[in-house]
């Protein structure tokens, strides 16, 4: 997020939510959006293919077809430019590439955008007016924007819109992607990515590699590594022989699970580290029992870049140990065996950290954006949002104030690109995926939380009454959903939350995980799979026949 939850909640004059089912995925942000709309009168615009809860609270609900976000955003920008509502001062002083944007956006007058998106031209005009008349406004998005083959175009179009309106670098504005899991922001910040070290220092930069070579006392590999999806394919092909999976469950969370299964079966040596015996563990050679968050010390970084303490409250059960302890044991053993030989004179070569605070000390020393994020400051109650370049710096609640980090903000115009796989005669319906409030990610934790399981005990697939009737699927009856890659059986939730032609499924329940169906086609740049659109067909499952 460029901005903070608080300034969006309190200072935005308008909130535009696109591709985020906020009240179910980020509930406490969701309630702040509802509150801003209701008690502060900030108009709320919601764009989503499904009539999600927030749509009920919206001043304007734009129900666009899955995979048409860029077209919708271009349509809004077309109206804003046409009406002279663009913030010309901001464009002139803070940005570049406006001419390119104008050229592309010219191709999306409301009628054209309407044809592509299914949103009426009048609603596109009305939304553009609301955005223009209520500044600063915050744009909020989540996986509904990114999980497409056109994910990068969608993200750029969100930024284009906000720059066009001059909504950047001010309280109540900004481009605000909501990060899904508790510490997905921190895992990225810490260099859990194939092309960057902590703080997004690039592997491709020789000076950065030199810095880490000197710090860690070992030569640093110079080629970018593989992404998750590439790792699995490489394992299937035998190029990757050892897969070390820490706290993840690709057998539920990755696209095209039948392919994931083949990859895991082919993996020579698979080590999995988790709280529970997950679906992925079935394929493991060794499983390490890990500690839960309540059983360890450390920090998480939330979606607004805020670093906060995690504290050990209880002991792990039996022999379970923290992930830090386990990986440290492996490192020390491999050094002892001579399989790695870091130079003992290098300042950070060793693995002898006595506490999470000491690891953070190493992070401080090697990561400019976290340099001032120290345990004493956190314990003293400092509220720190990175970048925090030194121990006196108060943190950065809003990014791009007065200046973009790259200097001028660049308009990167993008055209609409249809999803990789669209419905056809054989697979006539479109499937989109997401989550529900009572469960989380692969469901490993929430299916084992008594109350959550009681309220939402099994997978449900949303289908429109017309499609259900056409396929003779009864409300609460079992249905089979089949794509080119696999099939699942789940209970039908017949509802007009979805439009005719669209079904919606989750991946919280392993046996009915939507990812048996999803399309692994990737955005060429971000390598994000297209979870949000694929083609399926549905049929009833007769009583008594099981999955």
């Amino acid at each position: 997020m460029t901005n903070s939850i608080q300034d969006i909640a309190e200072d935005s004059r308008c909130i535009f939510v696109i591709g985020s089912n906020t009240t179910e995925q980020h509930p406490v942000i969701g309630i702040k959006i509802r509150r801003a709309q209701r008690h502060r009168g900030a108009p709320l615009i919601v764009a989503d293919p499904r009539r999600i809860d927030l749509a009920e609270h919206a001043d304007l609900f734009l129900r666009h077809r899955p995979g048409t976000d860029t077209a919708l955003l271009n349509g809004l920008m077309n109206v804003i430019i046409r009406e002279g509502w663009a913030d010309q001062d901001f464009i002139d002083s803070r940005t570049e590439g406006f001419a390119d944007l104008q050229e592309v956006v010219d191709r999306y007058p409301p009628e054209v955008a309407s044809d592509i998106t299914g949103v009426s031209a009048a609603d596109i005009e009305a939304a553009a007016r609301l955005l223009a008349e209520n500044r600063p406004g915050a744009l909020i998005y989540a996986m509904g924007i990114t999980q497409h083959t056109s994910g990068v175009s969608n993200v750029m179009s969100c930024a284009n819109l906000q720059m066009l309106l001059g909504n950047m670098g001010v309280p109540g504005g900004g481009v605000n992607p909501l990060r899904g899991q508790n510490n997905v922001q921190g895992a990225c910040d810490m260099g859990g990515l194939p092309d960057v070290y902590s703080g997004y220092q690039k592997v491709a930069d020789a000076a950065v590699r030199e810095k880490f070579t000197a710090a860690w006392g070992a030569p640093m590999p110079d080629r970018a590594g593989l992404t998750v999806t590439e790792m699995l394919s490489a394992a299937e092909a035998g190029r990757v022989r050892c897969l070390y999976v820490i706290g993840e469950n690709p057998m539920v969370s990755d696209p095209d699970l039948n392919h994931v299964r083949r990859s895991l079966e082919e993996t020579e040596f698979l080590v999995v580290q988790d709280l529970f015996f997950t679906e992925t563990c079935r394929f493991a050679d060794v499983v390490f029992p890990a500690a839960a968050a309540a059983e360890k010390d450390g920090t998480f970084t939330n979606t607004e870049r805020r670093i906060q303490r995690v504290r050990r409250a209880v002991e792990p059960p039996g022999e379970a140990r923290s992930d830090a302890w386990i990986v440290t044991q492996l490192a020390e053993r491999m050094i002892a065996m001579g399989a790695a030989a870091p130079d003992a004179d290098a300042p950070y070569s060793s693995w002898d950290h006595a506490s999470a605070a000491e690891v953070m000390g190493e992070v401080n020393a090697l990561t400019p954006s976290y340099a001032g994020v120290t345990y004493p400051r956190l314990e003293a109650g400092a509220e720190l949002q990175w970048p925090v370049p030194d121990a006196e710096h108060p943190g950065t609640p809003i990014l791009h104030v007065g200046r973009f980090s790259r200097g001028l903000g660049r308009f990167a115009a993008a055209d609409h690109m249809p999803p990789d796989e669209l419905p056809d005669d054989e697979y006539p319906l479109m499937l989109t995926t997401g989550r529900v409030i009572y469960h989380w990610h692969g469901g490993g934790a929430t299916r084992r939380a008594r109350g959550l399981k009681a309220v939402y005990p099994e997978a449900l697939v949303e289908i429109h009454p017309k499609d259900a009737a056409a396929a003779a699927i009864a409300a609460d009856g079992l249905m089979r959903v089949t794509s080119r890659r696999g099939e699942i059986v789940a209970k039908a939730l017949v509802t007009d939350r979805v439009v005719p032609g669209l079904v919606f499924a989750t991946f919280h329940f392993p046996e009915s995980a939507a990812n048996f169906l999803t399309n692994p086609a990737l955005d060429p740049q971000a390598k994000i799979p297209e979870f949000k659109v694929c083609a399926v067909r549905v049929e009833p499952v007769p009583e008594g026949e099981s999955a």
Partner: protein
Amino acid sequence: MTTNSGVETMNVTLTVNGRRVVAPEGSTILEAARSAGIRIPTLCHHPDLSNVGSCRICVVSVDGTSGLQTACTAPVQAGMQIDTESEAARATRRFVLEMLLTDHPNECMICEVNGDCELQELVYEYEVPWPEPGGARHAFAVDPDPNPFIVIDRNKCILCTRCVRACAEIQNRDVWGIAHRGFESRLVAGADEFLLDARCESCGQCVAYCPVGALYDKMSLGRARVNKVTRVPTTCSYCGVGCSLDLNVRDGEVVRVTGIPEAPVNGMALCVKGRYGYDYVHHPDRLTAPLVRAALLSAEHLDARLANGEWQVTAVPDDRSPDEEITPDTFIATDWATALDVVAGRFADEKEAHGADAFAVFASAKCTNEENFLFGKFARQILGTNSIDHCARL
């Protein structure tokens, strides 16, 4: 003083209990007194919620006016002379408390919120005797709602409407309301339905704001009295909002989650997962020992250590029958040293035979920053590969 919107506000000066107090125009007597460190008791007021001024616990005497004023709603005026502890104010408070007790069960000894109850505190402070029996008392069914997270005991409800306002103003869901009037008044969900049917999201905000034991966390019944738990402040382990919360720990077990009023992201608000999804931590399915396939263990060690009970044959995957023969694929629960040696040894062999490209690491969006940093160091320094990624995109 300048407010957020940049509008200048004027200050007014008043006297509270003989002390000069300066407060911004438009603030309430309660706010002015609190900012000066002067306590005025309250019940229906909560700083996060709108004021209704209904309970009359916060009454104070204002010189020059005849009656008492409710401090939580009365605005300050220049030159006001306020006595928060006048005999009239104290008598009114005592009377209000007495009235509440005439229809309140005398159950503090077995009440979940004993020691953490605003009514109990005030009754104690004002030395209100338990009223003589007589008059009508309610006898509502306890726990009439099947919601798995929230237990309702209307007998203890003092009709302060804090839950109503918490749901309407913080959660913005409007589940609770007060039906009927007078003695018949009672708290109802929706059109007198079950909570979930009234579109309750089970966030527990209403429970958190209830000053008494009328609403309580069902999973914590009988386990989490305030004097029995240690509260450990931490960050929610579910979504990226990063709400702060207190894990309430008793005998090594998390028995309740409570909010932290000064939490920077969420204040007292939490969602159903953060407040009620904690019990996975203690689920019997938790892995409690390293598991190694039998084929990776020396046959001789295997027999000996299974025989002496140091290692065990496991029951995972769960479709494995316990009396099956041990096969090379059977998972054996071993000690740490053995399991770590198996993995480190194999990694060392593979690195020597196939080089660093033979490795790939899935880091975790669920682990801490410090752990993810170490995973990156392990991949790059020890294994020698940049092939580390996690499901940021998933």
